[in-house]
């Protein structure tokens, strides 16, 4: 007959545990070939909503940090509104794809992906997943679209008295433009510099853009100091989340939707057409 409780739990502890967590009792579970099927997570809770019960300690060992408790949004409605605001009309590129009824931001992504895209690694110790990979892809997409947008951008401010640092648009220096190979495809190429890209995609500006879309209200993360968000790197996390939303759109709805969102909803507000 299998034991009622494993041998490493004494009787008094078993009673205490039973009273503490009447529903789940992971400590009373015996490991081994005779184990019954591991109690699955509560069926009605989706994955984004609960941390996997097997990864949780039944009680907290360390003291609570000496700062206000940090709470994140758990309500789907503000999240959907944020997605609508973020994607705007760029979702129309997804028309015609199977399973796309409406092209509002909230309908482009499934529920799990929507929550995953705004979950930072710091949230719940990464147990509910995080958006690093999506952000990596999103950053590549945004970076490429930035370069392409810089091709059409007006000339950045160059030192006015410098005759050699000129672009093809500068008409004063036709004398030396004969040494430059002119081609219609290469117009605006000199606008692409690492400096101008870094200026456009600076994390602070992206963070401000994200705040305007309401991302800071819905993203799930855990600051180091809940009273000092700036010092805890909220701007980095906001920029990270912007990238990951673009990446999620790319993985779920294809490159066209993601590129359009990057162009119209991220770069355009940052000043690049």
């Amino acid at each position, binding site marked *: 007959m299998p034991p009622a409780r494993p041998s490493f739990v004494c009787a008094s502890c078993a009673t205490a545990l039973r009273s503490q967590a009447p529903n789940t009792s992971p400590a009373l579970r015996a*490991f*081994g*070939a005779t*184990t019954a099927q*591991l109690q*699955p*997570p509560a069926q009605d809770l989706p*994955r984004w909503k609960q941390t996997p019960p*097997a990864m949780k300690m039944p009680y907290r060992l360390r003291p609570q940090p000496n700062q206000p408790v940090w709470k994140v949004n758990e309500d789907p409605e503000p999240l959907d509104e944020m997605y609508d605001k973020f994607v705007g009309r760029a979702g129309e590129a997804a028309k015609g*794809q199977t399973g796309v009824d409406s092209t509002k931001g909230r309908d482009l992504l499934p529920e799990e992906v929507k929550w*995953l895209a705004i979950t*930072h*690694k710091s949230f719940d110790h*990464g147990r509910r*997943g*995080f*958006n*690093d*990979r999506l952000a*990596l*892809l999103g*950053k*590549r997409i945004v*970076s*490429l679209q*930035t*370069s392409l947008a810089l091709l059409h951008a007006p000339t950045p401010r*160059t030192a006015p008295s410098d005759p*050699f*640092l*000129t672009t*093809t648009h500068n008409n004063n*220096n036709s*004398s030396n433009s*004969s*040494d430059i*190979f002119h*081609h219609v495809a*290469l117009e605006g*190429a000199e606008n692409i*510099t*690492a*400096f101008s890209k*870094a*200026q456009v995609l*600076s*994390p*602070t500006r992206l963070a*401000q853009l994200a705040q305007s879309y309401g991302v800071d209200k819905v993203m799930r993360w855990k600051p180091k100091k809940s009273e000092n968000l700036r010092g805890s*790197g909220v701007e*980095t996390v906001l*920029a*990270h989340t912007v990238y990951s939303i673009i990446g999620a759109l*790319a993985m*779920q*709805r*294809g*490159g*066209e939707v*993601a590129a359009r969102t990057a162009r119209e909803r991220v770069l355009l507000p940052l000043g690049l057409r």
Partner: protein
Amino acid sequence: MKRVRLDRWASQLQPPRNPRLHAQRCAFSHETTTLPRRREVLPQQRQYITQTQWQCQRRTVSSKRRASTATALQEEVDEGEPEVLPPTPARAPLYAPSHRKAVHSAKLAALHARLSLSPKLPLQTLARCLVDPSADPRPAYNNAPFAVLGQDLLGHHTTEHLICHYPRLPMSVLFAAQYAFVGEATLASIRSEWGVEVVAAPGMEVDAGLLQLKRQVPGNSLMEGTSRQVKDMPGVRKLGAKLGGGRRNSEWNYRRGISSRVVFDDEFGELVGGEPYAGAQLSTPAAGEDDGAVEARGADGTTSTLPILPRSPDETEPTTVSDASASFVRAVAGALYLHAGAAATKTFHRDHVLSRQLELHTMFNFTHPTRDLSRLCAREGFEPPVARLISETGRLSRTPVFVVGVYSGDNLLGEAAGASLNEGRVRAAAAVLRSWYLYSPPKGEVVLPSEVEGAAAAATGKGKLGKVWRPQVIDVGEIVT
């Protein structure tokens, strides 16, 4: 027997031997039409321009193509060039061969043909791709713009390939694989595989088909990697430092993690500007390297002053051959995109980058695989992993072998052999983790996001090659170790 009259032959319009040059004619015609109207094109010059398009064979037998710092080509250029011009305003100095010389370069034409580049890419642009900013700092003459664009393109294609084919790859392995595909070392070896040679020193007189850069003097301890970038953008390093990211791990009270690299660092997770040499001083925002550039930090963290850019090759920072090679390959990709479009770039990426074999299973590094596997099973709701001995031999000998399998309930997750029981157990756990992280969806289900990008795709709903989009596997993330 009659004397061979090469000039007679050449005076008739012959089709060039290289069919690619025939297609180049369209590109050449831009050259004559976009000459500024103010400048008079003298009849001798016009004749020279049209003749040089077709008469690459028009050389005297004695003149040879020289690759190094000889002046033979210099004299040839001077024949038809500025001596006969009316006095023009001061021309910009040339630090690399002029684009007119690109037509004459056999190396360049051979490179173009060898790589099967699209005929839409003119030789002049390919010649510009071979000029590193250290050889000529002016953006209109060097490959810097193309290199930035090409880096974006190659990086984008590589990242989406990796993420779509291996959706569960951990971040550190993703960064490493990205570097293995399109990192500097790989691109440098691609450059040498292509057969592009490097000059000893840049100049106007060298062949247009050689990679021009100002070589770094060995023994100097300068910043490795793309040192040019930090000089060119003095604000970014400080942006990073100001926001508490993009900083070196050795700074006080700072630990460089993996997640923040997505925002601050480059596509390989490396610090932009490279890691300096060991023992380098930590630069503080107050004591910056760029003297004279007064920083007016805007409210959005960007700087309002421009970087002080070098004006001539005397002021440029020397680079390594490896960096210049990488810039060249990226520049080819960027130039190909500008001239020939996205499809040609994708083909280029497939032919030169994805054709390389990468063994991903060797790129993992686990410190506690048994612990990680236990957390993985807990997260996914599997039964906890149990290691069991499957078979063994030679327990009391000098070389025992224990085959250990890791089971989740009755399911064997993975097995491995080791020289001791512990080693077998640990290796088996690592094998299971690798098999989890290296999961790849069936090939028929993988559709890359860029395959459905573009106006045509948006209109018809089908991408290139008729691929219909389907959502790709999105994994929640790796186990945080």
